[in-house]
């Protein structure tokens, strides 16, 4: 501010310093000395005796009078000298005090630096940028780094101390985490490169070898589950360590070290560990262990795919054994139940332990699909399982339970490659259920049909639905018949007819047999009645599928009601007019085919509790020389005795062959239709493309055999639907 000046005016004017004050060099030196002294005082914790204002002014003056350089250099030198002293005192510290001393001095230095920077702020803002020198604060940090951290005596000692503490903590000791935090923060403040080079890199290396050693030790003595527990614990520990006293950026690095050393390097050994590896965990439903394994393996490359592969090959192997074990195949219902149980078990594992991971679900599905189709009786057995459930297994179950069970069966159904074989069997079994009236719940039956329709389309189920319609219509027809013809029928036997539309029901060749006259009469009456109302139709009695209820009186007057098959009825009625008949006589009279007759006589004469006939000789098998007598001495605790059965059973070998043959025959036109469809739209196509297109189109029903496709193509060429291209013999052309 100026002293004298122009005469005072109204308005106050402040003018710039006009009078140039020349500082003599001595003044600069003196000023510097003041500041130098101040710096020392600050470091000596005597800052309170200093005047901030004065020091600031001094620094300001120096810079103003172009002594910035002197100031800066002086600062640098002073600080350097100071730090060298400090480093000596740190080096002198013993044992555990080393870090504390270092930390304390660091704190001091920071405080000092702050004050110094404030004092020299003008220089920092003017001289420093223009002369491209390092700003004060940064300068202070760099000097600390160079003279303390990188001082030969301190550098390695610091690192060793830190690593040693960490190691001790890993071994279970408690260490001063706050101090550690401070030190690592110091390193970060000095620059990420310092933190990384002077601490982090060696830290990671040491950790790697530590965990490498530890994992080797564990794996020799622990089982898989326990090992994983330990690995998990170490992993969590490291993460916690980072959060407490390391820089956040280290987390990913250290965890990947642990993952690599403890998990990735031992992956295969862990998974395949005998008695405790993945397979054992699956078998024993060890959800917690599995969950842990999943979480840990997820962290390493190929971890999950390794698990998946092991699981897949285990499933396939087990499944394969299951479906090829002849013991298991004796009871189809048990067999399917076992499959369902396996599916449930693994579904639960995937949902509870593997977080519903879709890739594992897919692996499960593909494994099941693989082994279910290894056994070509699977479609038949699944149908038998459903048959059993609908016949009696679902008795008393709620609607929800029914839905659950049927849905599970549908899952198995989806795995089948030969769905058309299933359809054939399902039809057969359904027919038997409907005709014998042995279905537990109509709703359950319908529900199953709906599910099949949703899965496979209308065509699959249209015939099945037709069967239900026939049953209903038959009921109505019978009511009408009795209403109209009641007088005509009088006391004759009561007839209950099911009229089956030929196309919908499984075709059974119906060998004729001779019905007893009483039955014949009423049957003819029905036929006349039916054809009267439905002209143009043809009725054929299916004597191999019917049942009859007969009232029989035995020797001591016991009356029983016998429930028998139609064939059995024919046989029994013969004994109304004769007490004894030979096999040949029975055969002649009834004209029942030999194999059916033998089976029928067997159940009438050779089964304990049901032997309404007596056979001579008393052998177990029926021979053509046997004679049969009405068994006067028959007794039974039940009034109603069930003898005939039309229950669905596992097919015998010859029956199985026959069914399979019929299925193959049915497939031929389907394949041809597919070929024609494809060629019609594509016009020209090569052989391999046809095969793959056909397979794609039909895969919902069955897997066509390429050889069969080839034969069908040749058949179509014969019949001039297709021709080979004249130039390229692998190409086929559609002939309009």
């Amino acid at each position: 501010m100026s002293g004298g000046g122009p005469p005072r005016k109204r308005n106050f004017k402040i003018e710039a310093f006009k009078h140039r004050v020349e500082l003599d060099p001595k003044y600069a030196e003196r000023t510097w000395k003041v500041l130098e002294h101040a710096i020392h005082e600050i470091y000596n914790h005597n800052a309170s005796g200093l005047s901030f204002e004065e020091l600031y002014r001094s620094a300001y003056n120096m810079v103003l009078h172009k002594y910035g350089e002197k100031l800066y250099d002086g600062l640098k030198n002073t600080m350097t000298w100071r730090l060298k002293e400090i480093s000596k005192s740190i080096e002198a510290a013993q044992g555990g005090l080393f870090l504390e001393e270092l930390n304390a001095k660091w704190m001091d230095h920071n405080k000092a630096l702050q004050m110094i920077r404030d004092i020299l702020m003008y220089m920092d803002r003017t001289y420093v940028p223009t002369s491209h020198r390092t700003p004060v604060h940064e300068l202070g940090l760099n000097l600390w780094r160079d003279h303390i951290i990188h001082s030969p005596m301190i550098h390695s000692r610091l690192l060793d101390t830190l690593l040693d503490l960490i190691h001790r903590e890993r071994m279970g000791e408690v260490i001063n985490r706050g101090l550690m935090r401070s030190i690592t923060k110091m390193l970060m403040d000095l620059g990420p490169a310092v933190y990384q080079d002077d601490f982090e890199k060696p830290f990671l290396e040491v950790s790697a070898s530590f965990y490498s050693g530890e994992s080797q030790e564990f794996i020799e003595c622990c089982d898989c589950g326990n090992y994983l527990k330990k690995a998990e614990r170490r992993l969590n520990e490291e993460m916690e360590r980072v959060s407490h006293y390391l820089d956040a950026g280290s987390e990913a690095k250290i965890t990947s070290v642990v993952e690599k050393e403890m998990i990735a390097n031992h992956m295969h050994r862990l998974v395949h560990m005998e008695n405790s590896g993945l397979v054992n965990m699956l078998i024993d439903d060890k959800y917690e262990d599995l969950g842990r394994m999943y979480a840990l393996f997820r962290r390493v490359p190929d971890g999950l795919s390794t698990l998946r592969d092991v699981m897949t090959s285990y499933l396939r192997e087990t499944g394969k054994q299951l479906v090829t074990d002849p013991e298991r195949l004796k009871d189809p219902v048990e067999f399917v139940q076992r499959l369902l149980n396996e599916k449930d078990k693994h579904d639960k594992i995937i949902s509870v332990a593997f977080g519903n991971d879709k890739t594992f679900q897919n692996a499960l599905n593909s494994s099941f699909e693989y082994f279910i189709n290894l056994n070509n009786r699977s479609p038949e057995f699944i149908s038998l399982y459903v048959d059993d459930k609908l016949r009696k297994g679902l008795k008393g179950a709620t609607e929800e339970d029914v839905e659950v069970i049927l849905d599970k069966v549908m899952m198995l159904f989806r795995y089948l490659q030969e769905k058309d074989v299933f359809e054939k069997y399902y039809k057969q079994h359904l027919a038997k259920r409907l005709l014998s009236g042995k279905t537990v719940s109509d709703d359950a039956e319908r529900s199953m049909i709906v599910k099949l329709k949703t899965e496979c389309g209308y065509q699959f189920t249209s015939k099945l639905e037709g069967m239900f319609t026939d049953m209903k219509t038959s009921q109505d027809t019978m009511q009408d018949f009795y209403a109209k013809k009641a007088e005509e029928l009088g006391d004759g036997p009561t007839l209950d007819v099911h009229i089956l539309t030929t196309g919908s029901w499984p075709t059974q060749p119906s060998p004729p047999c001779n019905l007893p006259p009483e039955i014949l009469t009423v049957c003819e009456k029905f036929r006349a009645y039916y054809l009267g109302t439905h002209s143009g139709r043809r009725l054929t009695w299916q004597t191999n599928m019917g049942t009859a209820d007969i009232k029989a009186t035995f020797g001591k007057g016991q009356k029983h009601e016998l429930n028998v098959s139609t064939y059995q009825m024919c046989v029994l009625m013969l004994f109304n007019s004769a007490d004894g008949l030979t096999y040949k006589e029975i055969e002649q009279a009834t004209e029942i085919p030999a194999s059916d007759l033998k089976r029928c006589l067997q159940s009438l004469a050779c089964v304990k509790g049901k032997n309404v006939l007596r056979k001579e000789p008393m052998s177990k098998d029926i021979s053509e020389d046997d004679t049969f007598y009405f068994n006067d001495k028959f007794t039974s605790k039940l009034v109603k005795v069930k003898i005939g059965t039309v229950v669905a059973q596992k097919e015998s070998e010859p029956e199985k062959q026959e069914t399979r043959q019929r299925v193959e025959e049915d497939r031929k036109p389907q394949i041809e239709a597919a070929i024609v469809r494809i060629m019609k739209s594509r016009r020209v196509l090569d052989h391999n493309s046809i095969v793959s297109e056909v397979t794609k189109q039909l895969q919902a029903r069955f897997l066509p055999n390429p050889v069969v496709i080839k034969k069908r193509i040749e058949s179509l060429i014969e019949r001039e639907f297709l021709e080979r291209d004249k130039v390229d013999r692998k190409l086929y052309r559609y002939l309009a």
Partner: protein
Amino acid sequence: MKNDADCVCNLQYKLGKGSREKVQQFMTITGASEKVALQALKASDWHLEGAFDFFYSQPQISAANTRRLEEMYNKYKEPDADMIMVEGVSQLCNDLHVDPQDIVMLVISWHMKAATMCEFTRQEFIGGLQSIGVDSIEKLREKLPSLRAELKDDHKFREIYNFTFNWAREKGQKSLSLETAIGMWQLLFAERQWPLLDHWCEFLQVRHNKTISRDTWTQLLEFVKSIDPQLSNYDEEGAWPYLIDEFVEYLIENGFVQRKK
């Protein structure tokens, strides 16, 4: 198999109006058949003058010769039918000094476009001899070597081979009986030397025992021509008829060839 009329119709379809007029003119002047007319005109690049030169310079059958052919036909034809049948054919072979089983008879039948084995209609007989270019037994006898030589031509052999299927069939049948097929194959491939012939015939008798379809017949020739006897270039994905695939399996099973790695 297409007959002359079909061929000509197709060709006529492709002819322009001017060309058709030329054909008509030619036929009127020379009295030749349509087929001959087309031949001549094509050879002379549709110049009528050149066509006449061509026609008269060829040893063509003139109208007079047609009568000689008729006489020939009548010599061999059945007394009570307008066809040459087994007896006539036998006589013909005799006169030609050839065995009825001689393959040259097949070549002749091919020229005649005969519909069925051991039968010739008037049209077939006369038209065939015309196309061969002879009008007497002696001339035909002289032509025999050159007819046999036609089998050496790849293109002609294929035509004759494919012709054989329809010709050797029973009337009204779609496929060829196995016995006949084997006989024909043996005849044809004696000329062409296929090393696997015996295995093929054996295989058919043992494994197949049914008739041969046309597709199998035609594809077999392709197989013989393109696949070497060691099957080194046989491709399973080659869309061969399944019978041939089975034959390959048969050869491998019995160790006649090595399975490809």
